[in-house]
């Protein structure tokens, strides 16, 4: 396995597009397990997303333990520059982050402007588990009627995300990844309702 496998990245990209255009759809990046030969304390799929999205044109921010050391490493591999949370194009939240950092990242990150709503941050979030359990109901573009999902995450991020996306098209997009290489993506257009 080489450091950068264009075909693995292409397959992951197509799965990202599938999950993003049909929110609630879980894709499994299973062909990429244990594929990296550089050990950084993140999921293999997170590392793959770094390869897919980062280069000299964009900035990133990593939240988790030893984030400074990891950021230097990621910069060396991708040539992307690390930036403060409120300026970064891509924010990676590793699973060993502190409690509250996901909500803080959602609140602090850039959400674009009405003229340039695409100049908003994208969050790539490692979570404990992603499933189709009917805890949250999803509606919006990409969903025929409704979709269901559950994301095992201690932070109460749903409300923070709803607040961030309240002035559509301004808003943020979040990609969730779990240790089993499951991927679920929520564009800013998706409305989440909690089910009791």
């Amino acid at each position, binding site marked *: 396995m080489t450091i950068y496998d264009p*075909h693995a990245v292409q397959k992951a990209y*197509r799965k990202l597009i599938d999950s993003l255009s*049909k929110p609630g759809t879980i894709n499994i990046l299973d062909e990429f397990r244990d594929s990296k030969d550089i050990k950084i304390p993140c999921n293999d799929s997170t590392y793959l997303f770094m390869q897919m*999205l980062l280069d000299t044109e964009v900035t990133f921010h990593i939240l988790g333990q030893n984030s400074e050391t990891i950021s230097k490493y990621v910069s060396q591999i991708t040539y992307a520059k690390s930036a403060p949370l409120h300026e970064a194009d891509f924010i990676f939240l590793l699973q060993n982050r502190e409690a509250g950092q996901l909500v803080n990242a959602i609140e602090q990150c850039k959400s674009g402007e009405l*003229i340039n709503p695409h100049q908003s941050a994208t969050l790539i979030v490692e979570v404990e588990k992603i499933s189709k359990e009917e805890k949250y109901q999803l509606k919006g*573009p990409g969903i025929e009627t409704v979709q269901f999902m559950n994301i095992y995450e201690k932070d109460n991020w749903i409300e923070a995300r709803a607040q961030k996306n309240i002035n559509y*098209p301004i808003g943020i997009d979040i990609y969730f990844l779990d240790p089993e290489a499951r991927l679920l993506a929520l564009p800013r257009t998706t409305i989440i309702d909690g089910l009791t």
Partner: protein
Amino acid sequence: MKAYNFAFFDEGSKREIRRATVKAISIPGYQVPFASREMPIARGWGTGGLQLTLSLLGQDDIVKVIDQGCDESVNAVNIKKFINKMTGIRETEQTATATIIQSRHRIPEVELRADQILVLQVPIPEPLREVEPSEYITQRLHADQEYSAIWLMLFEQIMKHNKMTTGADHPVLVHQRYVMSPSPIPRYDNCKLHNSKALILLGAGREKKIYAIPPYTTVQSLAFNDYPFQTEDFSGRTCHLCGASAVYFDELIDEESGHKYYQCNDSSYCLQRLNQELL
């Protein structure tokens, strides 16, 4: 072809197009600017669509390319040859077999599935261009959702001609937010954009814009209550080759008799009917 990376582009170029594409999917109908590479075909000949297609393609894909509904026109054949040289992947003329369909000015007659991606080539992505020449201003009009000029344009058409005369490229409202150019597809195809099962990506190479319609997204053709949107009327007409009705036709004229006759515009659909694959 070993001299080139898989799918022609270097990985940095693919990455930039992919980043623009995911933003476009997240903001339906919004035109995301991208760098638009120099391509070995001229701008205006499908470079936007081709760049999108190349950024998507993998080794397992099967690609179909059509130009005005035809798989065999020069533009479609050249693009297919180029894709094949750069990737070695399979080509098809059958809509149902393809995983990625690149098209100029038509959406195939066969309904697309959720596992397919339609890539449309776009010459002028800005629906407000006819009423506002400045890109600086149109960006601000989109930001403010200020679309009165395009409504006025349609109103003036009704005042002059008693109908909307947009022909192809009739503007649409996507997810009740952005007015969008659907590319010069006939009005007949506008309805296929609404709640499409397949992801639709639109690429404008010369104008350096990528935009998207995710599946199951509301797409309304602009119209007035008393002047509803109307598609081309082909009632009572049938294809002179396969006998199909209620499809989009080419109108042909017999030069000797002056007699008009009709033929399916989607050539692979017509051929499949003739081969009794779709009957």
